[in-house]
C-alpha cells in the first residue's frame, strides 16, 4: 500500500513553497517510493548496528594553528545582498509599532 504523507507539513519543514499541482504529484510519487523504501524494515533485525560511514574513521585532528582562509570579500562575493561586511536578509523579527 502506498504510504500516505502530510505533504504540507513536510514542505513546511523543508522550507519549500510548492504549487498545488506539485503537492498532489509529490503526494502520489512519495507514497509509492516510500512503499518500496519501507522494505528496509523487513531486512534488519534489532541486533544489527547502524552504519553511518562505510569506512569508519576515528576523530581526525590537526594542530590548532590558524591557516589562511577566505577573505571577507570572497565569502560575501555571491551574496544577493550584503551590507557592511555582512549578509543582508529580509526582516526576521516583527518590530513593535
Amino acid at each position, binding site marked *: 500500500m502506498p504510504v500516505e*504523507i502530510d*505533504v504540507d507539513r*513536510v*514542505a513546511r*519543514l*523543508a*522550507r*519549500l*513553497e*510548492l504549487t498545488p499541482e*506539485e503537492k498532489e504529484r*509529490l503526494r502520489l*510519487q*512519495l507514497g*509509492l*517510493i*516510500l512503499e*518500496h*523504501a*519501507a*522494505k*528496509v*524494515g*523487513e*531486512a*534488519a533485525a534489532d541486533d*544489527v*548496528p*547502524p*552504519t*553511518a*560511514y*562505510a*569506512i569508519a*574513521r576515528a576523530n*581526525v585532528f*590537526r594542530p590548532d594553528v590558524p591557516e589562511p582562509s*577566505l577573505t571577507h570579500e*570572497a*565569502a560575501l*562575493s*555571491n*551574496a*544577493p*545582498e550584503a551590507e557592511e561586511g555582512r*549578509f543582508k*536578509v*529580509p*526582516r*526576521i523579527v516583527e518590530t513593535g509599532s
Partner: protein
Amino acid sequence: MTDLCDRTATELSAGLASGELSAVDLTESCLSRIDAVEDRVKAFLTLTPEVARERAVELDVHRATGAPQSAVAGIPLALKDVLTTRGIRTTCGSRILESYVPPYDCTPWTRLSGEGAVLLGKTNCDEFAMGSSNENSAFGPVHNPWDLDAVPGGSSGGSAAAVAAGEVVWALGTDTGGSVRQPAALCGVVGLKPTYGLVSRYGLIAFASSLDTVGTFTRSVPDAAVLLGAIAGRDPRDATSLDAPPVASDLDRGIAGLRVGVLDGTFGEGVAQGVRDAVRAALDRLDALGAEVGEVSLPHADYALSAYYLIAPSEASSNLARYDGVRYGFRVEGGADSMEMMARTRGQGFGAEVKRRIMLGTYALSAGYYEAYYGQAQKVRTLIIRDYERAFEECDVLVSPTSPTTAFKIGERADDPMAMYLSDVFTIPANLAGVPAISLPCGLDPAGLPVGLQFTGPVLGEQVLFRAAETLERDLGLDLRPPLLSGV
C-alpha cells in the same frame, strides 16, 4: 583515422614527452572537435578555451626548458559542474546556483592544475547529481554521442559524453549511487568510482556526504589508473579522506588464477538481452584468460535500493538546506519575511527531482518516522557491508553488468521516478559499502549501443580492479567510435 583528441592520455603523454606533439596542438584538436560536435552533444555548461590555450602555451614553453612533466600535464580535461573552480561559474546543473562563482578550487582540481592539466570546461549533469539520465539538468539534456536521441546516463552525463565524443581526453565526475559508472557504460568509456575517501571531497558540492565520491572518465583502463593516481590521497580539508596505498606494478601480469565472482542477478529478468549477451561473452573471455569464474551473491542486495533511496535523500535534505537565498546568488524577492523568501527561493530555484528528494529526506528524518526509515536503512547498510566482506573471502573481484540496459531514449522514463531509480540497481551497493568499482565497455548491443561491465573490488582494492579490467580490455580490443564521429 583518428585525431589527436581521440587518443588515450597514455599515448598522448608519451608524445608530449618525446616532443612529437605539443600541448597547444592537443588543446586545439579538442577545441576543433568541440566546435564540430558540441551543438549536438551539449556536454558542457561552461567552456574555458582562453584559459586552456594560455595554459597550453605555458606548458610548451616549460617543457622546452627540459623540465620533467607529470603524466597529466598538457592533457585536456573536463570537470563535472559540481566540482568547484575558483573564478569559474559552478552551477550543479541548478537554477539556484546559476550565477555562483566559487571563491575556491576543489582539491582534485588543485592537484591536477598543479601538475599542468588543461581545463577545457565544466560539464552538464543532473541537478545536484540527482538522476540517471542527465534530464534533470536545469540547462537541458546532454545527448549520447552513440545516439543523439538517447540519454548519456547520469548524473555525470556531460563528462561521459565529452570523453566519448573526443571533446576532451578525460574527465572527472562524481558517483554517489552510480553517477560515474552508469554514464560511462551508456557512452562506451571507462568509469571508475574509487573507494570512499580515496579522493578528497573538498570542493565537491555535497549531495549525500557519506556516499559521494569523485571518479574518473577515461578511454582506457591504464588512463584511469594514471588519473586516479594524480587525485588520490589524504587531504587535511576532508576528514574522511584516506592515504593512497602504494601503486602496484603488476597491472599487466594477467588474471590467471584470479577468482572472479559473478553476482547473481547478472542474468536476471530486468537485464536486457543485449546486455546479457555481451556480459556472457566477456565472462567467457575471462575464463579463457585463466580466471576462476564462479557465482556469488550479496544476500541483502535486494534491499540496497530501498536503503539508498532513504539515506541519500536524507543526507541531501540536510546538505541542500544551505541554499536559502542569502549566500549563493539566487533569491526570489517579494516574500513578507525571511522565511517566505527562503521557501520561495527554494521552490523556484530547485527542479522537480531535487524537490522530490528533499521532501523524501525531510520526511524520512522527521520525528516519528526516523527509526522506521533512516534508522533501518543504516542497519541495512551494515548488512550490505557484511555481504561484501563475505564475498571477498571467496573472490578477488566481483563482476556484473553496470546497468541493466543500454542508453534509453530522452523522455522515455522522465515521468516515472521508480523506473529511473531501478537503473541504479547494480551500482548502488558499492556506494553503500564504500568499495571501489569500475565500468568498462564489453561490446555493443544489437542496436549498436555500448554495454558496460562492472568489476567491484574490496576497500582500497583499486589495483585488482585495474588488473582485471585492463586484461579484459586488452583481450577484447574493442575499437569504440561513436557514429557521430564518422562525419568529422
